[in-house]
């Protein structure tokens, strides 16, 4: 069996999220160097503030400013910061109860080492130089020897309040397609199209995914199919896709390769889009260096009889 294939895969999205009124006030406040909490019906002040009381589920909106100084309630020393974390140098994760708050906020504490950190130590906010209305407007916390700072009297009313945030997220993977798809991709690079047969129902799946979805059994017997096949159904694409250098309109089709029991899909070329039809016989067109057919084009055979492919629609 050939070595299993793998390739880097990056999933990256800028998530656009709307804010409720309490979240908007809190994040806008950070932009203005103000830390806001929200008062619950039983009089506790939650920082960071939430839209609903975590105990009673009541909607809450009584905003109250708290101090930028506070007390560490627990901590953990992070000697190897990871991508996206608040500081690039070793730091302590901390839960900080700000003066005037009854709950704690998660953030980073810039300290020289773990021996300089303890539960109960006093800290203050270090503001980021550029603030946009995000939790990262607090760059981190830093040790604080002085008196508790006096909070201002903001009630959360700001000019130009935030309506939403854009939260980028990126995760890195090493993608490996598994045994069956590795074999399929390996054969493709030799310009062979190889499916796998179900040991029970005998159907040949192309591309194979390792299991017969009907029988729930492993497919292992490799079967070369095609290269010619029949268009079983198709659609005409009229909207140009981003970063795709294909003129519209073009045809995208389901193609039942000879010997396969499942249609695969591919673009049809070499024929005007409005002349593509069900039953059209096609063959793959390979381009230099490509690992899969660029598209399929008509052969000179007569169209396939409907009876020969109706089960594959």
């Amino acid at each position: 069996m050939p070595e299993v294939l793998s390739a880097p895969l990056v999933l990256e999205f800028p998530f656009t999220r709307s804010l409720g009124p309490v979240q908007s006030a809190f994040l806008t406040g950070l932009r203005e160097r103000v830390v806001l909490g929200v008062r619950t019906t039983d009089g506790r002040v939650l920082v960071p503030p939430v839209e609903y009381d975590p105990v009673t589920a009541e909607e809450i909106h009584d905003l109250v400013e708290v101090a930028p100084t506070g007390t560490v309630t627990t901590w953990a020393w992070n000697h190897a910061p990871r991508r996206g974390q608040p500081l690039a140098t070793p730091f302590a994760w901390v839960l900080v109860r700000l003066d005037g708050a009854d709950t704690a906020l998660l953030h980073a504490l810039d300290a020289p080492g773990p021996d300089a950190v303890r539960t109960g130590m006093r800290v203050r906010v270090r503001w980021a130089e550029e603030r946009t209305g995000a939790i990262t407007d607090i760059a981190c916390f830093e040790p604080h020897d002085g008196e508790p700072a006096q909070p201002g009297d903001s009630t959360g009313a700001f000019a130009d309040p935030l309506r939403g945030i854009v939260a980028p997220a990126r995760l890195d993977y090493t993608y490996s397609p598994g045994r069956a798809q590795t074999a399929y991709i390996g054969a493709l690079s030799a310009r062979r199209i190889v499916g796998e047969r179900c040991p029970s129902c005998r159907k040949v799946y192309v591309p194979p995914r390792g299991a017969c979805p009907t029988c729930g059994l492993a497919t292992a017997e490799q079967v070369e199919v095609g290269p010619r096949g029949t268009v079983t159904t198709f659609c005409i694409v009229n909207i140009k896709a981003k970063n795709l250098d294909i003129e519209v309109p073009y045809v995208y089709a389901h193609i039942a390769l000879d010997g396969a029991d499942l249609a695969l899909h591919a673009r049809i070329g070499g024929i005007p889009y409005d002349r593509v039809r069900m039953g059209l016989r096609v063959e793959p067109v390979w381009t230099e260096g490509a690992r899969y057919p660029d598209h399929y084009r008509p052969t000179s055979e007569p169209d396939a009889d409907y009876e020969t492919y109706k089960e594959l629609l």
Partner: protein
Amino acid sequence: MTSEEAPAPRDIAVVAFAQTDHRRSTEESSEVEMLMPVLHEVLARTGLKTADIGFVCSGSSDYLAGRAFSFTLALDGVGAWPPVSESHVEMDGAWALYEAWTKLLTGDADTALVYSYGKCSPGSVRDVLTRQLDPYYVAPLWPDAVALAALQAQALVDAGHTDEPALAAVGARSRADAVANPHAQLKGRVPQGDYVVRPLRTGDCPPVGDGAAAVILAAGDRARELCERPAWIRGIDHRIEAHALGVRDLTDSPSARLAAARAGAFERPVDTAELHAPFSAQEVVLRRALRLDDGVCVNPSGGALAANPVMAAGLVRIGEAAARIHRGASDRALAHATSGPCLQQNLVAVLEGDPR
């Protein structure tokens, strides 16, 4: 209007369990290729075929391997023709089992196949799990799973509930017990190692790995036909706490305690407890919350510190507890599963065998 007496609740049991050997990487297999042998094994234990199963429910997360809709591809391994009655939760398989249990309670089905799988190897699970956190105030800081568990561990140390040697002993006991578990990934003498995020060391953290598990549930007489000694689910419940870490008391688990109470765990002592505590300190929290004394055999499988296929590790706890009842090694066992950071959400099931 007529009033009808509510029918007696049905007795529902775990009648079969199977799991993969959990490994650091299964890069040679796709998810369905990894899962399928487990599905075949659990079906073979009962002699059932997919077509005989009344309900299919699975748990997994696409974020782990970065594969969109991987659960639909995994369904290929079930053999979904003729069409099956099927559901999926983006959670640990223990919650899929909960859904299947409720389905059987309604009488709509007499048997259920529950499975879950997790491939942690393609990504960095520490970072992937940050994406389940509050997206406004927490996720932008990328606090990884070990960091959050370390905050909980330090809170426990500060409260005097544990210390570093006691935490190391939890890991050592788990890996020693795992020697008897052929499926475990990390077993035997394992160095406690350096700090990952202080106060947690390598030995306090679960191994990163891939794996899958499957369970079959059956109701009443059907369970007795399929299994010599069914593991009856006497109670099962799950509870969740506030998502904001700073609102919670991290040294306690009121949600686990309440779920256990609702599942009837405190009515009589259990002899075995399979706890889903991926970090050593979490076992300390759970033992107190669930009132487990030294007479209870905790995590004889080695627990999540010996194998932690994310999204399957909770279902594995239920399966391991049930398997002990099946083979007569336990008469009454507690199984626990967790989800979210720092034991945010907890499920407790109480399983019993018929008197011998």
